[in-house]
């Protein structure tokens, strides 16, 4: 008996080190570090060997060569003689455009759906429920293809265009709408609008401070409305409507002049917004339900009106629950916009990751650029939403 207990402490060095918590964690980390970097080094070496074997190398010089392909929707100047770099920028702008437009529409529709879903009216409630369940359980790619198919197949050809007040024309080649041409005086209206927005921000802050200190209330809503919409609107007419509209007209088989919104953009925008709105609807519903009913009761006990209860008690508390999952929905929408390639909308993936890649054969460089661009966009959206989340977070002691 005594001999066995005496032998226990005399273990070898490795076992002693392994049984010490500190040293063990250092050993594990060194091994993990070596394994991960060994693996990465192995892959990089393979890549170098493979690229050399086919004589490709790794360089971004191709970005400055002419892209020699057309992009049907470019918000900045672009033609087929522009460089691959410029094509990439056009792609990034198109992705950001669809992301921003989609986020706005999806948020509006989502909040409406969430409220309808909470409605006491049985029929309305069920309609919202059926819509949400249908949309959420079908892959977004099918929605995109379906909406695109319906737009292209069921809208008329330019010759039989659906005219909206003889100014805009809906066809299967897109929505042709009047294009605003700004006269110099217009910039005064624009400046007034910006001034109105800035004034409103400061005025709201001031009004809140006055109310916190003295209890006195200003008619904030009406003053803001006048500053942002009223004054620019009035000045627009006083200055003699300084915008002329270039109206599209039919020439040959298609419309000329004006502004065109491509069917690909409309299809992608509608499909992504309708899809994401269903998720946002459920998030909004959960957020509003998460506010304890006692809060509403307490508010009415204090004699606060229903509208103010919603504005001052329920929504601020619901927002705390809503914002974090809303962030991930915005990220999802942005990432899903990469499916644009299925219907030929020219976003990041379709430009640099698609045509440029196929033309130059530089898979490594192109895919690296695409991945980095998406990571940057994702990180920016997360950072912004985290900042917003921190602002509305519950302030605890």
């Amino acid at each position, binding site marked *: 008996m005594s001999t066995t207990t005496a032998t226990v402490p005399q273990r070898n060095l490795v076992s002693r080190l392994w049984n010490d918590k500190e040293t063990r964690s250092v050993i594990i980390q060194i091994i*993990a570090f070596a394994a991960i970097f060994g693996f990465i080094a192995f892959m990089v070496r393979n890549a170098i060997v493979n690229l050399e074997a086919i004589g490709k190398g790794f360089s971004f010089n191709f970005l400055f060569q002419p892209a020699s392909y057309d992009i049907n929707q470019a918000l900045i100047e672009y033609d087929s003689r522009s460089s691959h770099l410029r094509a990439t920028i056009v792609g990034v702008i198109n992705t950001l455009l669809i992301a921003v437009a989609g986020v706005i529409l999806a948020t509006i529709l989502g909040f409406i759906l969430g409220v309808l879903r909470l409605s006491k009216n049985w029929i309305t409630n069920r309609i919202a429920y059926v819509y949400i369940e249908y949309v959420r*359980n079908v892959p977004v790619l099918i929605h995109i293809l379906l909406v695109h198919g319906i737009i292209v197949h069921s809208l008329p050809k330019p010759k039989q265009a659906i005219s909206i007040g003889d100014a805009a024309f809906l066809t299967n080649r897109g929505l042709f709408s009047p294009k605003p041409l700004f006269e110099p005086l217009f910039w005064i209206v624009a400046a007034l609008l910006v001034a109105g927005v800035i004034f409103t921000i400061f005025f709201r802050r001031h009004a809140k401070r006055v109310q916190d200190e003295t209890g006195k209330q200003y008619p904030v809503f009406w003053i803001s409305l006048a500053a942002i919409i009223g004054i620019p609107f009035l000045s627009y007419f006083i200055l003699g409507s300084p915008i002329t509209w270039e109206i599209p007209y039919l020439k040959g088989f298609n419309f000329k002049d004006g502004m065109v919104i491509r069917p690909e953009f409309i299809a992608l925008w509608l499909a992504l917004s309708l899809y994401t709105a269903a998720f946002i609807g459920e998030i909004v519903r959960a957020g509003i339900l998460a506010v304890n009913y006692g809060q509403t009761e307490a508010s009415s006990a204090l004699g606060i009106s229903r509208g103010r209860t919603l504005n001052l008690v329920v929504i601020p508390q619901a927002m705390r629950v809503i914002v974090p999952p809303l962030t991930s929905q915005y990220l999802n929408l942005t990432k899903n916009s990469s499916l644009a390639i299925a219907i030929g909308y020219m976003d990041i993936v379709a430009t640099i990751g698609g045509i440029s890649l196929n033309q130059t054969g530089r898979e490594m460089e192109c895919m690296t650029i695409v991945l980095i661009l998406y990571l940057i966009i994702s990180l920016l959206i997360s950072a912004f939403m985290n900042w917003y989340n921190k602002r509305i977070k519950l302030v605890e002691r």
Partner: protein
Amino acid sequence: MNTQTYKPGEHPDMPAPTNTTGAVAWLRDNLFSTPTNIALTLLSLWFLYKIIPGALDWFLFDAAYTGKDRNECMAKADGACWAFVGERWKLFTYGFYPAAERWRVNLSFILLIAALVPVLWDKTPFRRHLIWFSIAYPFIAGWLLLGGFGLPKVGTDEFGGFMLTLVIGVTGIAFSLPIGILLALGRMSNLPIIRVFSVCFIEFFRGVPLITLLFVASTMLSYFLPPGTTFDLLLRVLIMVTLFSSAYMAEVVRGGLQAIPKGQFEAADAMGLKYWPAMRLIVLPQALKISIPGIVNSFIGLYKDSVLVIIIGLLDPLGIGRASVATTEWGGLSTEIYVFVGIFFFISCFAMSRYSLYLEDKLETSHKR
């Protein structure tokens, strides 16, 4: 009409007044309680009246169900043309899997159901033993579908249709859960290097769209392999899908881990348990139980995302559908084909989401108001 008086305590049980029970009261409470409510009801009814009859006519009553090709089908009806379903259902189910070997697909599907029962239903008899079969299932199915060891080999380029969706779904689910758990533990670990690595991995895969990863798989992954080796496309896609979904799984599991009170970890330490036994016996069983609904939701996401493989040229049901739209027989039927594939996905995803709700209900032990 006679009025009867009762002594206190001798009132017989009378039915409630008719206007507070039954259909009329229900209608009044739910549809016509306030002017806004009445307006909303009328608006909804008008909306349904506008949508439903037209949609049903197109979908069901005016639709044609037979015909050799689009023209023959369209001549019969004004509505949808569903004839392609009857003509092409084998393609939609099996892809290009050799006709003589299709029993293997059917068998793996039956075995899949057998493997799912002990996982999904906790009252299965002998669940503890049957679960081993479920764990072994992905490998058995892999052998059945690919062949070798006595069965004739089938190349993965012949996989397609619904079967391909199941292959991607099952592989992704079977492998992303264990990797996801490891990543979640890594992210919560005390060892900085492990933690940093896990965070980088998770954030990278969550930051980029799946479609770009699939492009990486199809265009650039082969450069990273030792010279001379080639992977087939489906395997590369499966690797990417698994890694992608394991990053999401890791975040779900991390949510579960963070919900475990610190006392549980400390109690495990106090019992003298080392890291892995503590995790296996105390922390993970509780954390995984909380995160089951989240895990099912990620599975639904993975299953829906599997359609993206069509963009790099694999033919799942949507891919077969798109290929059908491009044929001369069925060209121009895009709406019907996408609706058909959409219904297929709707049925499977809706079933999964109902299951997730059932689990949430079962795991919910608090008292609702």
